[in-house]
């Protein structure tokens, strides 16, 4: 992690992965609910396949009088059950049908490519993780038998603890993920919104015609956080989500804070704000080249 994104620790449910290129990328870990739904969808597919196989096997055996079709079906259904997840995660680059429907993907936690051994390892404990704790909860006598309490208690507690792993870990890691070195993430979304510093009516690169010029002292007051808020407001104004009164109020607040003289904030708040945004951004970007970053108006430099 040569280039950590931030000094503060990552929030829960967010994981950072550094690929071979050395640029850390952030992913949202899939929630337990998402994964449970994906798993149920997959179970449904596996169950259906199993039923179809068994019906086929039993019918073939009854009609031909041979036992071999049934024997094959027993083995095949087991193989489907055990290798469905491994097969799809290899074939579909870390997604099963259920995961694909839920927009989830398995990745390697260390940022290298997802390997076959990682996929196999993460799926070997799957049944143990899901069904044994369920049994411990619903019918403990089946799992623990007549074991004495000093054996039954830690065993049951261990199984439940293993099941609780994805609920308590920061990256929602289940035991299989730990063993395989994998994580399940949500597919990130990406949509490019327009840049508010570009005059969209003009050809790109044309000089911007500002009516108002702000001094360096005036631009030194706000920081990146305020700039960002202003960009959001301008975007909202474009789509009609922000009312003209809001713009006017913001423009007047800014004018007052930076000591701007004139009627512009009152008469044409939108153009005033856009103009201020452009120059504020140019100022902050230039300061950044000097190595000075101003996160918000509360920042001192």
């Amino acid at each position, binding site marked *: 992690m040569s280039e950590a994104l931030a000094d503060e620790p990552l929030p829960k449910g967010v994981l950072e992965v550094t690929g071979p290129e050395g640029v850390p990328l952030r992913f949202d870990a899939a929630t337990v609910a998402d994964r449970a739904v994906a798993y149920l969808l997959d179970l449904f597919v596996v169950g259906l396949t199993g039923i179809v196989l068994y019906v086929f096997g039993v019918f073939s055996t009854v009609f031909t009088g041979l036992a071999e079709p049934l024997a094959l079906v027993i083995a095949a259904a087991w193989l489907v059950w055990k290798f469905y997840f491994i097969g799809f995660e290899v074939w579909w680059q870390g997604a099963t049908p259920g995961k694909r429907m839920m927009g989830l*993907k398995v990745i390697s936690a260390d940022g290298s490519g997802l390997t076959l051994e990682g996929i196999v390892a993460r799926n070997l404990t799957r049944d143990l993780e899901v069904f044994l704790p369920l049994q411990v909860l619903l019918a403990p006598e089946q799992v623990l038998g007549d074991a004495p309490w000093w054996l039954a208690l830690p065993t049951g507690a261990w199984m439940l603890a293993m099941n609780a792993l994805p609920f308590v870990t920061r990256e929602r890691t289940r035991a299989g993920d730990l063993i395989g070195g994998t994580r399940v993430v949500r597919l990130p979304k990406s949509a490019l919104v327009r840049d508010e510093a570009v005059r969209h009516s003009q050809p790109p690169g044309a000089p911007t015609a500002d009516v108002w010029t702000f001094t360096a002292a005036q631009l030194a007051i706000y920081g990146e956080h305020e700039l960002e808020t202003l960009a959001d407001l301008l975007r909202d104004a474009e789509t009609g989500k922000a009312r003209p009164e809001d713009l006017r109020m913001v423009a007047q607040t800014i004018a007052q804070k930076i000591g701007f003289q004139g009627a512009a904030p009152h008469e044409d708040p939108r153009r005033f704000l856009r103009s201020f945004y452009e120059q504020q951004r140019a100022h902050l970007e230039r300061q950044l080249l000097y190595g000075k970053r101003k996160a918000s108006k509360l920042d001192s430099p």
Partner: protein
Amino acid sequence: MIDVEPVGSRAKRKELRSVTFRREREGQWQELDALVERALKKGLGTLSEPELRRLPVLYRAALSSLSVARRTAMDRALVDYLEGLAARAFLAVYGSRKGTRGALRRVLFEEFPRRVRALAPEMALSVFVTALGAVVAAALMKLDVGWYDAFVDPALAGGRDPNADSELLRGALYGEGTEMNGGMLSVFASSLFVHNAGIGMLCFALGFAAGLPTLLLLFTNGLMLGAFLSLYAERGMLFELVGWLLPHGIPEIGAIVICGAAGLHMGRAMIAPGRLTVPQSITAAGRRASFVVLGSVVLFAVAGLVEGLFRQLVTDDLVRYAMAAFNGVWFFAWLLLGGRRRRERGR
């Protein structure tokens, strides 16, 4: 330091750096976006050859854009977009390593034996615990044959217990007294495979509880084995029993011992992670052990066929011993010799 020059005038003359930055690269980003969208929705296979070559190039360009934007861009929306784009492209590019041709052959005949050999200490412990179970069972049965019931589940024994007469015990070895007609043998074989392979996988997965349940499972397996051997030895039928047991026992008991070793390896990784953190250690051990379990599934399949078909159909002791020898040869040759050649070539 405060700039004395009016900043606004300069901004008027020149386009913003970040605007130029975006204008120059936007086309590439959108091209990457479209490729990634298709790769994630329909699979990498739907991309054409030139597109596949283009993908990593565009991905690296997007990463460099992201690095620059994170440090210099004041447009958070742009940075967010690039974060999302780069992350999606990462998934498309590093989703999984493409399975090369012959991956299964490589795993079975090179990786599997090599990794089993690398587990030598765990294998030794696994064999030792199984043997210990067998010796303990045999010793206790010398004192009192009543111990038999404690070691062998009556449902599994099917009447083969110390109270049974020798004829019944002998008959059980040669397929007498069972209701099995020839046709159902294949079903029997595949049920055995499914049952045993499931136990093997459990043996590995239980390693996640520090390997203790794995030890317990191996020990009880040994107890059962010892009780059986001791019962038949007492009646002077050890030779017949071994002939009955070995043909399928070599792959089957071998596979259980191997899966047990894999589970113990994981337990060891949890208890003694060495220089790694515990999660790192578990991951490393789990990945190493995964192919071992995969190979064992094949062993269980072979054992199921031998146990379900051969053992029921062939009742001649000598043929059984010949089969046992044959199984022993390929089993040990596979584990001891497999995957050695490539390693030497690599040196």
